[in-house]
């Protein structure tokens, strides 16, 4: 199943299939390692609901929902135990 990153639930994982968006934002996403094939885990949302925090290429990255909309992923089946459900 494919969906964009902003639609992910906390703790959900996926593999990036495509990155869209306008030049500058797309380039920045690429530079930070969000390229097709990268594995992404949605860690949390900020207290006010936006931006999001993800783990990609074993580091933590924050991005806004609008920027997350540019990233399409194939959802992985399993969800990590490392992330609790209190958020």
């Amino acid at each position: 199943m494919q969906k964009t990153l902003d639609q992910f639930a906390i703790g959900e994982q996926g593999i990036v299939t495509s990155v869209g968006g306008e030049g500058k934002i797309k380039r920045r996403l690429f530079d930070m390692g969000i390229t097709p094939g990268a594995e992404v885990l949605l860690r949390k949302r900020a207290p006010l609901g936006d931006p999001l925090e993800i783990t990609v290429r074993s580091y933590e990255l924050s991005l806004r929902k609008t920027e997350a909309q540019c990233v399409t992923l194939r959802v992985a089946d399993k969800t990590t135990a490392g992330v609790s459900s209190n958020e």
Partner: protein
Amino acid sequence: MSEKMPRFALAGNPNCGKTTLFNSLTGSTAHVGNWPGVTVDKRDGVYKKCAEPVAIIDLPGIYSLSPYTPEEVIARNYILDEKPDCVINIVDATNLERNLYLTTQILEMDVPIVIALNMMDAVERQGDKIDAKELEKRLGVPVVKISALKEKGLDELMDKAYNESQKARHGSTVLNDTALAHLINDVRIALSGQNVGNPLFHAIKLVEGDEIEVAMHKETLPMVEEFKTTFEDEIFGDDFEALVADGRYKYISKHFAPVLTRKSKEKFATTRSDRADKVLTNRWAGIPIFLLILFAIFHLTFSEDFLFVSTFANWAGKPLPTLKELGLDVENYGVRWLATIYDGAIFSPGVIVNNIWNDMLVGELFGWIQGLVEGSGMAAWAVGLINNGIIEGLGAVLSFLPPILTLFLFFSILEDSGYMARIAFILDRMFRRFGLSGRSFLPMIMGFGCSVPAMINTRTLADEKERTATVRVIPFFSCGAKLPILTAVAGAVILHFANGKGNADLITYSMYLLGIVVAIVSVLLMRSTTLKGETPPFIMELPAYHAPQFKNLMAHLWDKTKHFVKKAFTIILASTIVIWVLTHFDFGWKFLNDEQINDSILAGLSRLVQPLFTPLGFGSQLGEYGWVFVLAAVAGLIAKENVISTFATLGACLLAAQIPALSGFDPALLEDESGIQAVIAMILATNISVPGLISFIAFNMTTIPCFAAVGTAKSELGSKKRFNWTLVFWLAASYIVGAIVYTVGSWWWTLFIWLAVAAGITCLIVFYNKGKIKLNFRKKAR
């Protein structure tokens, strides 16, 4: 630094330990300056343990060599144009893939490279392993394991770098397996034919469609365009930029990442940093914790009632005695030391440092110098100039040093620990409403302490317009030096007009609030008119938490101190001399004593501009002596504490001038340091109204900040035009705010006129932005 000295540049991602390595290598030789044209710190220093001394240049932390942030362009241009003898690429071993992404780009340049594999200890602590020898083989450049923090492996690193710098190296790329390899090679050959340096690097950037390259190599561009028409990738279509980035990461995952063997098979393991983060950015606790930390910082820096001990004592009905009440001799040297820590209340560490610096060190030293000057038998004007002009002026500026450094220390701790990024993360949502990002919060809140470090801190903002807007509104966050103005005038208003009944703090707080409102309104206004632009993106690394390094913190503070002291002894010194001369000579260049201030050049000039302040309530309507308020405001442009000292001088002058309105005034009252009585003397002499007084403080709060802040704004804004407009903006903002306060305070119904004007302007901007109104200056408003 000699021209012939070999130069090694340090390049790497932000948070990779670059600064620590730089400090370890250069020790105390580091030198901070600005990059020409762009205001990003350029630091260089000397490493002395190689065969010959080597200059070390610290490039800004970057993720890529794309042309989108000023830091990236600086680092890229430095390596391309200045041709360092070697690039030391620091790679954070705990984050190998993303760090090597930058490495793959630097490798494409024709420059000797050594990889410094930093933070290996952290990797090994997790039980993971990195085969550095294997990585070296695969990258084709030397790889040295180091610990910048523990200063391990540095000599080996520098020896390797020195060896490499003796050889020439040609760029190499990891893109040879991709579909673009042929195109890149063709463009490279074409560029080599045109004698372009670093042909491989330029070829790849040109293929990517990089803005800078496209403008630079127009003749070669058709080659790329032609290829593009025949090319179609199944995932990326003809998006070469995406293809290149993807190619790099694919290669890294396949060839470089395997040198790392992880102990844990879990892909997204939970670390200690993650557990800390769970609390600190928790959905419910995150914001309260943040507010608490912020409060603690300001309390520790500024509070004269540490941990509210005195407040509790008052509340319990047993107020703590002052040193005088304890029967101690407050003039005694030992007791004066005691007074820096306790006097009726226990002071916060920041205040203690401040007291020691100002009362015991700088105060003593300057007092001693002043004594010497007085006893030297110089002419009266020379004694006055040195003692009251230069030394008092320098003292006023240097007295800022402790609070600035204390605040900076706390904010450096937040930055180093990784919490700063989380503050931006927590607050981004709120700030986006105003067209800013969460990162602009910090400089603004620092403004409550002092505008100077706050403006320097805006360097963390990537977006130029966001940065300009932030620098402009920082002075509206009323700084520590403006507080005395507020308390003096508010105190006088309550004492004189309300017989002491009422709460002066309420006036003070509402002024702080007014500043914040003005800041919000002006940001909204700027972002929808002159600084229009998209909300800057917020794609930001959240670095792992770690304990701040003492050595780094001290290096930070030392840098700041040098910067500040240098400024104090140049521009600020010059300006205090000018002001002193203008207040102590009349138009015939006759020297005046302090009491004759109303005959001085500055008083004359103040009288000249006095009518301009009529709409603000402290202009022509105040009559003969009305210029005192204007003069106080002008003196505030040098340093805001000048306003209070000017109050004191003017109060004394007014009494000396024997104005009838002041006949019943007891001169002894002027001894009071807070300036309240001096303001009352000014009120009596001028008959100023309450709205006029409130307008006066509102004007002082929002107008052009002190000299130090103006100087900082100038260097931070970069462009001269932008700086000049900023001055105009500050003047206009304070004038309008003062006028609103005065007119609405005097005649409440004028509120409706202001509201109507505001509504009109809002409509105009909205329609203009929607394109419904076309004005001829459209191109200007861009």
